[in-house]
């Protein structure tokens, strides 16, 4: 009874905090500009199935892909067991599904254990890759401090949670022999039975304590981890799915149109459509802060797990420029969190004197982009850092007239000579003279 009450309180506290964070994340994403994405549902579902569920893009790098697949499948499947944990916790039962499922329960438990071991080993490999082999993309400057710690916390937590499952199952198997009334038979569990010999010598009271401690540790760990995830890059395990669904379907070379400008240009040229709706306030051109980006860009920032495949492919980054597409996403997220948290406390929010461009992302970074789409191609969850970069450039060029001077000269050439270089438009066809001779 005491355990039940304790469990209900624990669950309630976790749900309270998770809900609070979900609402905050939701309202923070909604800071973004409205953008209706409801076209071509079949192509979107295909992306969701292949890229998110099917992990298609991960397999460009087979070794991390397989390790990641173990953790991903483990996450999906082991969470079924959490359902039993919650029911047992609420009703004071023990392994409630065991009697109903019979032999199948044993199959399930063995599958969970196999996945638990696979997750555990994968996490160990990932820790080694990050911290000992020092894979380059995990050691870029934007990974210093919290981002690197965050990654290690996630991997260590998963290892500890898996150890708890195996410990619980091992002690449970010994108790099944000694107190069969209270501990329904699970049948032999392949991996945890390897631990059984070291548990046999312990007395029953100690075993009961270990089993309960492992059970509590696992469920409290999972609940705490769920709260933690909402503050962490690990949020990709949820938001990666919608992000692939809402990802851009046009060819990567297509740049988002600005209808506001179209109206103005047509008016200037005297060809305005009489029916065209002229928006009263065109708002800001391009993006200076997170609310100038689309909600889709903001969702993408929350979906980023900082793997750095984008940055590893970025030609500017490879050759030592400051631009890192991963940092663009991390900065966007950090700024969103800052604004969102402030607004939740009735703070100044967007009017805190700071902005995404300037305080987080510098012009030097966005100016270095070649718009080559390597980052977009590389992302396993279809995040598009290029869209953000180009929106920031639009702000700089149109609102600040702050483009690099060489670009301003290029603009001037196009305006006066209709070519980005300083050539006379009347000479444009001179190339043909050689052949006409």
């Amino acid at each position, binding site marked *: 009874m005491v355990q039940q009450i304790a469990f209900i309180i624990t669950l309630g506290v976790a749900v309270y905090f998770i809900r609070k964070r979900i609402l905050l994340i939701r309202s923070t994403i909604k800071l973004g500009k409205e953008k209706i994405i409801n076209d071509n549902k079949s192509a979107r579902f295909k992306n969701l199935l292949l890229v998110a569920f099917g992990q298609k893009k991960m397999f460009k790098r087979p070794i991390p892909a397989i390790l990641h697949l173990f953790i991903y499948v483990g996450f999906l499947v082991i969470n079924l067991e959490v359902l039993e944990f919650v029911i047992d916790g609420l009703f004071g039962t023990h392994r409630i599904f065991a009697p109903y499922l019979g032999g199948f329960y044993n199959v399930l438990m063995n599958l969970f254990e196999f996945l638990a071991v696979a997750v555990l080993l994968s996490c160990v490999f990932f820790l080694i890759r990050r911290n000992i082999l020092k894979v380059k993309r995990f050691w870029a400057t934007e990974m210093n401090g919290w981002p690197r710690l965050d990654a290690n916390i996630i991997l260590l937590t998963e290892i500890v949670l898996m150890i708890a499952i195996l410990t619980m199952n091992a002690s449970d198997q010994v108790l099944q022999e000694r107190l069969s009334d209270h501990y329904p038979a699970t049948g032999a569990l392949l991996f945890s039975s390897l631990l059984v010999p070291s548990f046999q010598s312990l007395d029953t009271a100690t075993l009961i304590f270990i089993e309960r401690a492992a059970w509590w540790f696992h469920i409290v760990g999972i609940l705490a981890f769920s709260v933690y995830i909402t503050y962490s890059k690990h949020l990709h395990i949820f938001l990666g799915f919608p992000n692939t669904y809402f990802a851009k379907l046009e060819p990567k070379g297509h740049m988002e149109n600005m209808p506001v400008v179209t109206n103005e240009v047509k008016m200037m040229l005297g060809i305005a459509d009489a029916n065209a709706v002229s928006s009263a306030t065109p708002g800001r051109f391009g993006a200076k802060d997170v609310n100038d980006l689309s909600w889709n860009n903001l969702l993408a920032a929350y979906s980023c797990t900082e793997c750095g495949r984008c940055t590893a492919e970025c030609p500017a980054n*490879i050759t030592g420029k400051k631009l890192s597409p991963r940092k663009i996403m991390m900065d966007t997220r950090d700024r969103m969190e800052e604004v969102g948290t402030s607004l939740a406390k009735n703070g100044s929010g967007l009017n805190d004197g700071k902005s995404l461009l300037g305080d987080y992302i510098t012009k030097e970074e966005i100016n270095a982009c070649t718009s080559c789409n390597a980052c977009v191609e590389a992302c396993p969850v279809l995040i598009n850092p290029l869209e953000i970069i180009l929106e920031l450039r639009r702000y700089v060029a149109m609102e600040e007239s702050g483009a690099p001077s060489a670009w301003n000269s290029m603009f001037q050439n196009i305006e006066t000579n209709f070519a980005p270089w300083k050539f006379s438009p009347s000479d444009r066809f001179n190339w043909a003279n050689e052949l006409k001779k």
Partner: protein
Amino acid sequence: MPEAPYQIPTMAEMKSKGEIPEVLFWVGCAGSFDDRYKRVTLAFVKILNAAQIRFAVLGTEETCTGDPARRAGNEFLFQMQATNNIQVLNGYGIKKIVTACPHCFNTIKNEYPELGGNYEVIHHSAFLQQLITEGKIKFTGGAFKGKKITYHDSCYLGRANNIYEAPRSVLEALDADLVEMKRCRTTGLCCGAGGAQMFKEPEKGFKDINVERTEEAISTGATTIAVACPFCMTMMSDGVKNKNRESDVQVKDLAELIIEAQG
């Protein structure tokens, strides 16, 4: 001018004669003004003539598509250019456009429709591939046999528009020994000029992107770096100069290679 060896009719001339071309050849600013890329324009025009394609150009009526302005953030200038170009193109009733510039190709194909310009747009690599398949380009043979050629993917053809095979099949038709760089197709490394980088100095770093890419191209052992984009042409040529390999490594466009193969 029936006596002239090559026909380069303009749309205005065609219209005055009441003729309609099969395809408009969009030359682009680099193809019109850049000394190096003018040679590509000439090579492509020679091929069009030899294949008896009824084409036309806009001549002095052509202007920048606006791509560099848009990528540099100046949407107004882009849309001014685009709207004017679309008026000219629609005025002539253009249906089909071929261009040797992937940036013009991408802009006209993907970005003009939203502004009222709807055309079938083909990059010259796909156009050349088609002419080869149809037997309209004939090779006297063997000029490239055993010669190593590597193809540098243009971002605006490749990742931007998923055109990876057309330029390669043109090179294979030349009977050349096509060698790939490690970073090719979807993971091809940019030459460094896209996104309006062509028109300014690079930001501070420890290396220029074109040098990084040229080193990779040269390391394949290829004596020819094939390109299909005016900006890639400039960047890779500068890279070869930087490495002092001008004497044994050449940077060539697909159209130029076809002309060479024809001897």
